[in-house]
């Protein structure tokens, strides 16, 4: 009989001013243009802010593709404002390619071998309080610690692609420009009208969030997980969400703990801890050989 073991990597993700969200229906009385992502929680009154796994793993994957210099050979079609955009990504096609690619082996297998959790605020039970300003929230956990804070930031949207912006004759007339057909933004500028930056309000979230990832060790070796820790290190130097080049969306990982869950765990037993002192992704990578040995020894007990 095949044996089973999941390696669980958990820890803290300290995030600073991240906006992972979208434009939603604006609540009455607020002026927020882009909301951070919220979700209900069984042990919270109100919704809690979170960072969806699709967001942080998507960035992690993109950084790894660059790190390993993998070719973007698969066309990815996504919806753009003016039709569809072709944005190629790296994706190995054949099973043999997948099993030799450091990224696809972990993230693109038909038989899924890695599962990533949403980053929820640290704790198990939350109270969500509205702040004094519109769109502002404070999230406390069961120990009354403030674990997340959502605040509003002002930003401006610069007018881009003025050649592609179409101004209707009616709008132009309101601006004092008499025309009988629609014109482009560039033509409007030539007629002496200036395009101004548009101010908007965006929610950003900061706080201590829970990192969670699980790996099927019946199908992976510990060395296959190295790209994941490299990805976490890369994420610390980059950002999640919007406006990263302006200092937003920073994330740091700490208090990393690794445990193994075997069949016995799911039948009511305990997790098997991997006893290592390294708590940050870069420290894990520095002591990779030592940690691999510790994991392999425990895995041997489970998988034989």
């Amino acid at each position, binding site marked *: *009989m*095949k*044996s*089973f073991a*999941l390696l669980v990597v958990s820890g803290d993700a300290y995030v600073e001013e991240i906006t992972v969200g979208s434009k939603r229906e604006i609540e009455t009385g607020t002026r927020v243009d882009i909301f951070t992502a919220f*979700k*209900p*929680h*069984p042990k919270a009154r109100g919704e809690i802010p979170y960072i*969806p*796994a*699709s967001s942080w*793993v998507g960035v992690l994957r993109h950084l790894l593709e660059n790190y390993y210099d993998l070719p973007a050979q*698969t*066309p*990815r*079609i*996504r*919806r753009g404002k003016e039709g*569809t955009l072709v944005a190629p990504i790296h*994706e190995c*096609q054949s099973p043999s390619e997948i099993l030799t690619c450091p990224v696809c082996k972990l*993230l693109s297998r*038909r038989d*899924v071998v*890695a*599962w*990533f*959790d*949403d980053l*929820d605020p640290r704790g198990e039970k939350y109270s969500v309080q509205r702040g004094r300003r519109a769109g502002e929230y404070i999230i406390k956990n069961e120990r009354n610690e403030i674990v997340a804070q959502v605040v509003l930031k002002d930003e401006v949207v610069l007018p881009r692609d003025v050649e592609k912006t179409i101004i209707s004759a009616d709008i132009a007339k309101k601006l004092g420009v008499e025309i009988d057909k629609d014109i482009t933004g560039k033509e409007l500028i030539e007629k002496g009208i200036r395009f101004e930056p548009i101010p908007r309000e965006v929610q950003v979230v900061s706080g201590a969030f829970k990192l969670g990832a*699980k790996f*099927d060790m019946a199908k992976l070796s510990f060395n296959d997980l190295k790209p994941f820790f490299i990805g976490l290190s890369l994420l610390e130097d980059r950002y999640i969400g919007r406006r990263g080049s302006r200092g937003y969306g920073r994330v740091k990982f700490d208090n990393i703990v690794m445990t193994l*869950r075997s*069949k016995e765990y*799911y*039948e*009511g037993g305990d997790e098997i801890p991997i006893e290592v002192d390294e708590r940050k992704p870069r420290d894990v990578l520095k002591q990779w050989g030592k940690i691999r040995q510790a994991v392999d020894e425990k895995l041997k007990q489970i998988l034989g």
Partner: protein
Amino acid sequence: MQTKLIRLEFKSKIIFQRTWHERPWRMPSDYLVRSLVYAWSKLYGDPNELVQALIDDHFRISSLLIVRRGKLFLPDYGTHIYVTLEGDEIIDPAELVTELSRIRVARDMDEPTPFEEYLINALKYEWAVIVSFSESFDLNKLIASFRLLGDLGIGGRKSKGSGRFRLTSVDSIDRYNLEVKCKGFGKLISRYLPTCKEVEGKIYQESVTIWYGSGKSYSYVVIPEGSEVNVMDDGQVIFVENDLNHRVPIFFRPLIAVVD
């Protein structure tokens, strides 16, 4: 047969893709069985013991139910709502389901295909399933499989955090004022494909399509949850082969609830 209620607390939303004839708003019994077979085979190497229990009729399971304020809300296909067995309270699933428009990647340079994903906001309520099993069935293995399934997720986009849940308790159904049976007259709480041609009662019909690869599917017309039927047989478990050459059981055995 013994009966238990397994309570679940979701930690993230459940995602369904359009493999249905309608906007998905529930998780039917046959879908749960396929997920459990996956989890069981991961834990125990193969699903044979569970599959044999399905064939020998040692185990039946309901669709996913909602628990609110100590009451069970059962899916009713005819009205597309969750309703108590007495019919005195309802939950409209419209408050749980959001539609997401997406475009499928054109890997072989074909045109991109728009499709919809449906997001069930399962965090809003507590959920449960009713299981009925014989003495020879190993309930502990089923509970272990539920725990693993909760860790890995159910529905679509599991690797990116969707469909996570926690098994909170395994209870007796005594305090829910209902009795669960395999035969006789009652309200269906699982999807049922009878072996006989005629079934008595107030019957809904649902066309079910099981996809097993791009453009490949099996279709059945079943009696869905909420139908009030006089069940005389044991329904069916059908096996289909998916594109990974796995024999997948499609569980269409009836489980009915009556007021206790």
